[in-house]
């Protein structure tokens, strides 16, 4: 990595560290308890919040691209843990942030066959149905329980990121009956090698069952679910890594749509939170893609893991009432 790249990463880390350490003095001034009593904000002007959200989500957008994760998985624990918004609104915004990113990426991925509609549809039907239930559960449960469960889920994701291996071209010796009946297979062009790669899948029923849980978690925590989609598609079903990543991104546009509607219809959407976040993450993603080739993925990935670990820990402590 060039020195300038290191400087940029250091600034990003320092910024998040600054928020983490000085959270209380910065934000707690207007953060009231769950009692429902609103404390008037006398010193910080309203525009500070969309502006700071824009800056933070811009940085999240950069880090997410460099770390190979979706924006939603960073957005919910960081904004939910360190901003004064209620977790209901943060999860609603998280879903819309992930949805906007998936909708934007979808056309290109579908056109290049890196997202496969035939593969996505059965899993999307299961996940989007279950995401509705997840969203309803999340909005019905007490906030401290959701916050604690979110923290545990984030630490679980950290574990997956550390442990899970990836397979560029998994071996599928024998397809299963269901994938044969649904004719789930495909072909794509690998630009880097000049090869056309045909793929097929196995273990479809097991994959469908796992997507029940993925859908519930996506809706409940508003995380998006790329972190779970990719390992299941790649390692369990045997889909090549690039198609797994592309199809996962496309899947989010369907799963998150159903959960997002539940949040919208239950009033858990604040435009002041949602719009700066969507714009920030999208612009950050553009910048992230541009500097992707100048950075070392392993370093960024470790930074993402540390950030998620801290945010997950913070979420658990906040949920348990230890650090409110």
């Amino acid at each position, binding site marked *: 990595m060039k020195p300038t790249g290191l400087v940029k990463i250091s600034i990003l880390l320092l910024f998040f560290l600054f928020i983490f350490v000085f959270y209380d003095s910065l934000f707690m001034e207007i953060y*009231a308890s769950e009692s*429902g009593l*609103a*404390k008037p*904000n006398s010193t*910080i002007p*309203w*525009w500070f*919040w*969309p502006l700071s959200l824009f800056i933070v989500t811009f940085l999240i957008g950069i880090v997410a691209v460099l770390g190979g994760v979706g924006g939603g998985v960073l957005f919910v624990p960081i904004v939910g843990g360190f901003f*004064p*918004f*209620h977790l*209901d*609104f943060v999860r609603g915004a998280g879903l*819309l942030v992930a*949805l*906007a990113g998936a*909708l*934007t990426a*979808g*056309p290109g991925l*579908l056109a290049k*066959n890196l997202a496969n*509609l*035939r593969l996505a*549809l059965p899993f999307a*039907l299961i996940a989007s*149905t279950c995401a*509705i239930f997840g969203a*309803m559960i999340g*909005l*019905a*449960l*007490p*906030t401290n329980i959701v916050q604690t469960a979110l923290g545990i889920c984030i630490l679980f994701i950290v574990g997956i990121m550390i442990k899970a291996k990836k397979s560029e*071209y998994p*071996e599928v010796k024998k397809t299963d009956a269901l994938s044969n*009946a*649904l004719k789930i297979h495909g072909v794509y*062009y690998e630009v880097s090698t000049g*090869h*056309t790669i*045909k793929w097929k899948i196995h273990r479809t029923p097991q994959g469908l069952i796992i997507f029940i849980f993925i859908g519930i978690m996506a809706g409940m925590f508003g995380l998006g679910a790329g972190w779970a989609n990719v390992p299941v598609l790649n390692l369990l079903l045997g889909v090549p890594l690039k198609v797994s990543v592309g199809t996962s991104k496309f899947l989010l*546009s*369907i799963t998150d*749509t159903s959960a*997002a*509607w539940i949040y*919208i*219809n*239950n*009033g858990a*959407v*604040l*435009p*002041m939170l949602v*719009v*700066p976040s*969507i714009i920030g993450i999208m612009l950050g993603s553009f910048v992230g893609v541009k500097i992707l080739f100048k950075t070392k993925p392993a370093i960024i990935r470790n930074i993402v893991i540390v950030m998620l670990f801290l945010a997950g820990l913070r979420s658990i402590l906040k949920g348990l009432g230890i650090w409110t």
Partner: protein
Amino acid sequence: MDIKKTHMPIDVEKRVRPPEEQIRYAKILSKMMKVGLAVLILTFFLYISGIIPAHIPKEKLTTLWHLSVTEYLDAIEVEKGWSWVLFIKNGDFLNFIGIVFLSGITIICFLSIIPIFFKKKDYIYALISFLEVAILILAASGLLKTGGH
């Protein structure tokens, strides 16, 4: 895994061309996504610039957003579901046009590919697409409300 070396990208392009329904889905998604994002940004500008006054003043909003959604809706006296439509003339609720538009794109995309599946006599995928539309419309209908906390 079947890997073949190819030397002619044009041939490759024909071989890896996505099926008709996937291309249709991608084209509609591409157009609607751009419109949705443009509407989202435009309505947000109208809101924060104060050109269209908000139902909840921005200064007051900072004292409400820490509340749970149920407490928040009670405080601003707005019902759950599609009742935001009644407040659409206000800058803050105007933003819901873009948000709802983005959340409705997937439904339109699925509706557009169902006829292609029928044309191909691919009835299983026509049924899956139809069920997906039904699920999304149910979610969008506002019939599924939670008790809140």
